[in-house]
């Protein structure tokens, strides 16, 4: 094995506006190894790989491939440097055949006829070398997701890639498909390819990688030899030893069951089952936390419970009564409030004034105007009251919502949902992208809702948050609830459950 590393990144730095996605990243990837990069959502993994593949330009820093400094100005340059990438969202033309997708960009001449036969035989060779079977004439959209991904890998190999980047490759795969992928990756490594595997799943890292680097909040925090580290250590590195935000809370006094979920199954837009036969209850006066690594079905669960996504099967009961109409407006009438995971796309209309957002979803309410009219004075008064109570800054109800900081935007949502005095509250990632001061504030608000006898379902990928707020913790993995723990469950125990290792 050559001593020169396949990839060296030195001081890679990238900002998107105010977001510092990559902070002077250094990384060395040995030739012929599988190198995992792990980190939570938004840690900067995908940005880093997009820079390596020429999709984005780093603001500063150096990239060396096989010891040679290279300037990767676009994907073409990355391909020329022997780098191939399998994107999280496949870069495939869905109504094209496998063959056409593989040829695209490497047609071998102005006419397709020659390239077609060449590609066909090359595919045959790749199939023999790596056992990557796929019908070259199949149409992509008719193939199962696992095979589509195989086409992405073949695309890279066809272009002579020696270094293969896979961005969250198992997110869309069934466990069996994922295992098969790992076998393929192992074989590719054995044939001398270098593989960079980006994931937030600890299980995958432990199962397949030789080396692992951990990213957290745009920084590369550690690199370990996989065989000499543990899931626990990696989990800790990923989350970071943050000052545990201590939340004062007394004993919970759970009352009657408010929300009851029975055998709920939810599929996403592609028809993949994301929530699989899930049942649980939430009582008045308790916070039930759903722990889990992002992408294990929590988002779809919240969407189904809030009426945004139609469940595939199962029942949702509020106060023991099945909900008659799965519709966000109807559920609000039944006393449900929803702090959505994604405030930018759901919880807020960023182009609206603060005051306009403070009534979103409740705009039909009589307090904001009689009949069909909207009483802007009443809306403004209401907004100002919330601004004062929740210390939203700047205290200007007429400022465009886009101009508020993340923490203050989230406070607008939290204020709106809490001040409706709901009986049941769905809370998704309440403190994502929120500054420390606001986190504490929002946490206290959620606790006081519980103390006021509300039923609260909390979804968060921040284990700390789940542990400090919840009275009961459900752990979700691959669409299932794999176990229930009390609030004093250890981080290790939960981490293992989240990784799908223990129950």
């Amino acid at each position, binding site marked *: 094995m050559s001593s020169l590393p396949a990839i060296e990144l030195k001081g890679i730095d990238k900002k998107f506006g105010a977001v510092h996605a990559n902070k002077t990243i250094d990384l060395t990837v040995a030739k012929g190894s599988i190198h995992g990069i792990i980190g939570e959502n938004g840690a900067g993994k995908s940005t880093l790989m997009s820079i390596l593949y020429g999709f984005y330009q780093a603001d500063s820093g150096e990239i060396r491939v096989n010891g040679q400094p290279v300037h990767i100005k676009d994907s073409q340059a990355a391909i020329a440097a022997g780098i191939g990438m399998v994107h999280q969202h496949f*870069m495939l*033309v869905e109504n*094209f055949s496998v063959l056409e997708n593989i040829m695209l960009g490497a047609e071998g001449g*102005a006419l397709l006829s020659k390239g077609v036969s060449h590609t066909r035989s090359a595919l045959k060779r790749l199939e023999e070398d790596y056992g990557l079977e796929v019908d070259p004439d199949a149409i992509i959209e008719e193939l199962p997701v696992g095979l589509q991904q195989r086409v992405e890998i073949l695309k890279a190999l066809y272009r002579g890639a020696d270094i293969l980047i896979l961005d969250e490759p198992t997110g869309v795969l069934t466990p069996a498909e994922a295992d098969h992928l790992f076998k393929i990756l192992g074989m590719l490594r054995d044939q001398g390819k270098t593989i960079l595997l980006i994931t937030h799943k600890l299980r995958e890292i432990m199962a397949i990688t030789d080396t692992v680097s951990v990213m957290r909040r745009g920084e590369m925090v550690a690199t370990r030899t996989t065989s000499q580290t543990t899931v626990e250590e990696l989990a800790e590195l990923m989350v970071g030893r943050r000052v545990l935000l201590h939340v004062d809370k007394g004993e919970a006094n759970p009352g009657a069951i408010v929300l009851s979920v029975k055998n709920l199954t939810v599929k996403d837009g592609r028809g993949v089952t994301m929530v699989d036969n899930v049942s649980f209850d939430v009582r008045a006066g308790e916070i039930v936390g759903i722990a889990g690594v992002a992408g294990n079905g929590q988002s779809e669960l919240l969407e189904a419970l809030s009426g945004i996504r139609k469940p595939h099967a199962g029942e949702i009961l509020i106060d023991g009564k099945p909900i008659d109409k799965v519709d966000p407006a109807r559920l609000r009438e039944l006393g449900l409030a929803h702090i959505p995971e994604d405030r930018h796309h759901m919880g807020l209309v960023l182009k609206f004034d603060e005051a306009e957002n403070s009534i979103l979803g409740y705009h039909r309410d009589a307090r904001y105007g009689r009949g069909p009219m909207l009483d802007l004075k009443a809306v403004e008064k209401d907004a100002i009251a919330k601004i004062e109570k929740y210390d939203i800054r700047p205290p200007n109800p007429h400022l465009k919502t886009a101009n508020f900081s993340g923490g203050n935007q989230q406070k607008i949502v939290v204020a709106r949902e809490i001040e409706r005095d709901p009986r049941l509250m769905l809370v998704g990632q309440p403190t994502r992208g929120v500054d420390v001061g606001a986190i504490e504030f929002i946490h206290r608000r959620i606790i006081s809702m519980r103390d006021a006898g509300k039923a609260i379902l909390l979804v968060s990928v921040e284990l700390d948050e789940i542990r400090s707020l919840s009275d009961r913790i459900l752990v979700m993995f691959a669409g299932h609830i794999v176990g229930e723990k009390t609030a004093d469950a250890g981080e290790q125990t939960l981490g293992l459950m989240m990784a799908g290792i223990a129950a």
Partner: protein
Amino acid sequence: MDVAYFDLLISVLGSTIRLSIPLLFTALAGLFSERAGIFDIGLEGKMLAAAFASAVAAYGTGSPWIGLLAGVGVSVAFSLVHGFASITNRGNQIVSGVAINFVTAGLTAVLGNAWFSQGGRTPPLGASARFGEIVLPGAEAARDMGVIGHFYANVISGHNILTYLAFAAVPLSWWILYRTRFGLRLRAVGENPGAVDTAGISVTWLRYRATICAGILCGFSGTYLAVAQSASFITNMSAGKGYIALAALIFAKWRPVPIMLSCLLFGFLDAFANFMQGKKVPGIGEVPVQIFQALPYILTCILLAGFIGVANAPKAGGVPYVKER
């Protein structure tokens, strides 16, 4: 009696072909643009601009071929404007198309009037400055040789060169789209520009080339109107044909050979409407010609509503490609 009906049929079919040609060129133009993900409401305008430019150039030089060159050149220039607005500046493609239709409608009339002072008309072209009719070999002899001969002599033969080019453009377009590297990439960029970009191909340049193809074909259709079908430019002579072509493109679900068939169908409806004008159908009475005029649009709406199969527009159509997040 039968012979008279047959003659009528032949005459309707002949005019079907004549009326289909501008639709065919224009719909193929739309095919190149829309398959690359660029909506093109401005087909009408480009056709009109080309008609004007070709008439002026053919009048000035006495050569229909120079007229064609001018028509194509001007049409491509407006394609580039559309590209600049919708590709480079990521503007709204519909708005850009509407703007081009206005500018060309106004400009052709203003310039025509300023240069020739004939109420927007250009001076009539002599026979040598037009694309004349071509009598195919054996047509004269075939005329009296039964049904097929009659058909050959009066429907197939006797059109100008652009007519034959239009029909040649159908397999050519098919070949370009499905058998060349450019076509593969063009179809890919209209479905998933990300796939093209990650394959190391410039989305911008590819889409520009697609709009240029559209410009060239609109150039042909405009020239056909002014220098082949007529002998001068007349204000607003495209008269909505660009929109019918758009309907034909959709009706054909963005595929070359069905485009030819839908253009022939829409051309036939037009020819039939002309033929039926003022005639009474036994038992029904006079059928309003407006029904035939509206039929292409009604059919297209029914298709769009998903009542005749599914019309899947290119997935990335109308959406500017943005790489940076």
